């Protein structure tokens, strides 16, 4: 079952970082939507989703299945803005604790979860310094 992520009165925005490209506000897995909404509700931080099912990703990416999103802004600031580190860390920590999380890649936490098994992927950090890549397991 797919649905759009709720906007929470503008707390969650969907601005493509490539302005000429379509809006990423597209239906995603309801499990992924619930994860994102839960994190925004709990932290009260705003986020911008800059990619859902569009963009160019690995051939096997969960993006193509509506099971992954990218986040490039938290509270209006870039992920790699040093003054935003605490917020980015808080969001990543909460995301990584969710039962249905599949991938949580970013500057602070890089894990791949399969069932209840968590695999550390420190090599992903270098490619996720300026955005978070989040996917769900279903």
């Amino acid at each position: 079952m797919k649905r759009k992520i709720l906007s929470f009165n503008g707390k969650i925005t969907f601005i493509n970082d490539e302005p000429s490209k379509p809006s990423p506000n597209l239906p995603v897995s309801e499990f992924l939507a619930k994860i994102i909404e839960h994190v925004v509700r709990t932290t009260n931080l705003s986020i911008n989703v800059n990619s859902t099912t569009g963009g160019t990703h690995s051939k096997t990416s969960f993006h193509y299945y509506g099971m992954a999103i990218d986040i490039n802004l938290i509270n209006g600031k870039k992920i790699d803005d040093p003054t935003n580190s605490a917020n980015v860390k808080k969001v990543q920590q909460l995301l990584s604790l969710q039962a249905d999380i599949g991938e949580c890649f970013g500057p602070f936490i890089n894990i791949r979860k399969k069932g209840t098994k968590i695999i550390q992927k420190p090599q992903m950090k270098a490619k996720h310094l300026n955005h978070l890549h989040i996917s769900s397991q279903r």
Partner: protein
Amino acid sequence: MKFITLLTASLLIVSCAKTDLVYFANNFETIAQTDNAIPTLSSRLLRVREPGECDNNKCPQEVIYITVSEFGEYPEQALYITPKANKWQFIEWNHIPKLGEEKPTIIFTLKKTNKNIEQKVTVEVSLSTIEYK
């Protein structure tokens, strides 16, 4: 000018010197692949026959390269090769894992022919193991 053109071309066209890879890339034939409707595990079966022709009742043999990949941005992947046979054929996919399966495994059936003797082989593959039954 000609030198610059040649230099540019040499930077763009790089020959692959790995002999096995050159032979594989030029000769493999995809005989089956999973439809990937469910992002759990995917597989491709690539058949490669040895070069040459039948001579004194001895024919070039075939192997199947079995690729296995999980889904995700940086997937874990594996590659297996069957033993050689006179002929390998794909019969059917028996099992494609569903989302959430604890130990996802793909099961399929092949038919092997050796000296005119046909044998069905059930293959069970995951990212870490392969079993022939």
